[in-house]
């Protein structure tokens, strides 16, 4: 199966699957021999290729779901826990892979995520400072994963594939389960949305009104874990984390209206995923530059963040000078 490729950076026009010229649609798949590529080719034409189309569908679904969940991650300040979970699934992926092949990836990840969630909750109730606890749990689990992987063959490529993903070699049979899991995550969050927002805004008010902090936290952490589990095996743990963190942060920059945060985050994520995929494709095929898909998409996300940040800064200065007030020195809210 294609995911056993020996190099991290998968050549964009040849997946190690049996792609024929008809699939690819070009005559001569040599490096840089595609010829000048138009913008339209990169942005649209590329996705005529089946593996590109699959990558795009998966990324768009993930972008929307992770965007919605990511807004809550941002409002609750759960960035570090999400980082912890992405590292924690690593041993699950490694063991699942070793034991059951590709079919073992998702169950393995699920078990690992569950174990991590239980341990983190228990540590939290035992009164351990949560950020040190997260760091310890995540590296312990990650270490176990590294040891497992290091015992197998193709250590280096396996490690990197799990970290940086295999966006372009998503097996067709993985697409539907991934979409379903993401659906469950987003439904869970939407159903409890009012209470989640209240808890994010006013912790003690939420308690005073009788909402169970434990249940709400479990639901949200479970939704995050589901996204991580579903996505990590396909797009890699790094990309999942970016999906959960960046769109929410961007949405906060774009708007102060609560309900607009969600479409803003999802839209940004979808747009950047699309551009990232197209960019990597163009770079690889036209420029002869072999870029790993997952990391390219993350780079697009962070670049997009930078642009929005710049735009926000400019907009704030314009507003400030219009109102004639000196630029306030923004201090961190958290």
């Amino acid at each position, binding site marked *: 199966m294609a995911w056993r490729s020996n190099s991290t950076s998968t050549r964009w026009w040849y997946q190690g699957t049996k792609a024929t010229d008809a699939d690819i649609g070009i005559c001569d798949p040599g490096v840089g021999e595609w010829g000048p590529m138009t913008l339209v080719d990169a942005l649209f034409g590329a996705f005529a290729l089946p593996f590109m189309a699959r990558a795009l569908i998966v990324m768009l679904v993930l972008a929307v779901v992770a965007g919605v969940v990511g807004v809550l991650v941002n409002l609750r300040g759960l960035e570090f826990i999400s980082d912890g979970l992405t590292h924690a699934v690593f041993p699950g992926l490694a063991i699942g892979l070793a034991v059951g092949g590709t079919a073992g990836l998702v169950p393995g990840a699920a078990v690992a995520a569950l174990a991590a969630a239980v341990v983190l909750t228990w540590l939290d109730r035992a009164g351990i400072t949560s950020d040190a606890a997260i760091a310890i749990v995540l590296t312990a689990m990650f270490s176990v994963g590294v040891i497992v992987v290091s015992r197998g063959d193709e250590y280096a490529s396996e490690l990197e594939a799990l970290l940086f993903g295999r966006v372009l070699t998503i097996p067709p049979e993985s697409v539907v389960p991934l979409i379903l899991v993401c659906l469950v995550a987003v439904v869970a969050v939407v159903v409890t949305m009012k209470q989640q927002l209240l808890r994010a*805004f006013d912790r003690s*008010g939420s308690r*005073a*009104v*009788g909402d169970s902090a434990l249940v709400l936290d479990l639901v949200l952490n479970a939704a995050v874990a589901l996204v991580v589990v579903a996505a990590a095996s396909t797009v890699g743990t790094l990309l999942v984390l970016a999906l959960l963190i960046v769109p929410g942060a961007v949405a906060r920059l774009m708007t102060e209206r*609560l309900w607009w*945060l969600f479409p803003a985050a999802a839209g940004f994520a979808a747009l950047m995923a699309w551009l990232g995929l197209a960019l990597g494709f163009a770079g690889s095929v036209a420029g002869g530059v072999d870029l790993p898909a997952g990391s390219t998409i993350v780079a697009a996300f962070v670049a997009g963040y930078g642009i929005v940040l710049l735009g926000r800064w400019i907009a704030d200065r314009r507003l400030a000078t219009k109102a004639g007030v000196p630029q306030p020195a923004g201090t961190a*809210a958290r």
Partner: protein
Amino acid sequence: MALTPSPVLRLIGAAFTHPGGSGVTGLDLTVEAGTALALIGPNGAGKSTLLRGVLGLVPLTAGTMELGSVEVRGADGASGPPVPKHTRNGMIGFLPQSSELDPDFPISLEQVVMQGRYRRLGLLRWPGRADRVAVRRALETVGLTSLAKRRFGELSGGQRQRGLLARALAGEPRLLLLDEPFNGLDQTNRDALVDTLRALKLQGVAVVVSTHDLELAKEVCDLVALVNGTQLAFGPVDEVLTLGNVQECFDGVEVELDEHTLVVPGHEGH
């Protein structure tokens, strides 16, 4: 709201105790609809504990509590505060003493007040016409209608407090609990709050206010309970709020009594 014949809140021989052991005991009081009870006592006397106990956040470890028609019996040494069904019915509104709310949170005043409707909506339903009407009415009661669309974090301290009061009111509670709401309020906000409480009494809401401000107690409230670790006195304001009782409650601190007010040094206007 029609006045009901049975009291809204009744505590009989009740005690609320935190898991660590501290708490407040010996509570015997009754609050009817449309009346206001002042909870008076020094810092640490257990006023907040009492309010949180009524909410179900602190265990009832002795005696009985009646909320409307719901009766809750105290259990000895309860291990964790379970939230009894009565708070889930949304009949209680609560304004806490201080809230540490993120001033940058992207939420408007109107949306904050709408949070007060969530208990009635439950998990699956989303706000409808009736809820928007209730929110508007709550904002009118506290006098913040013009600021409805403003971001909550942009409001002044006094306005935020009134906003949270509106949130407590939006749920159309029968019993309203306020924990030291007058602390640090300037005169304008203080007067506004007094007017609001008077209006609520007319609407038939039962009110319990904890405060240091004895003048306020006389101004707004019909009943008083003096508390210092345990209940020392309870009854109509004019009978109970005497120099002697207050001195005992505040542990013999020198109390001044002038024409209209009882003033405890260090607690004026707090």
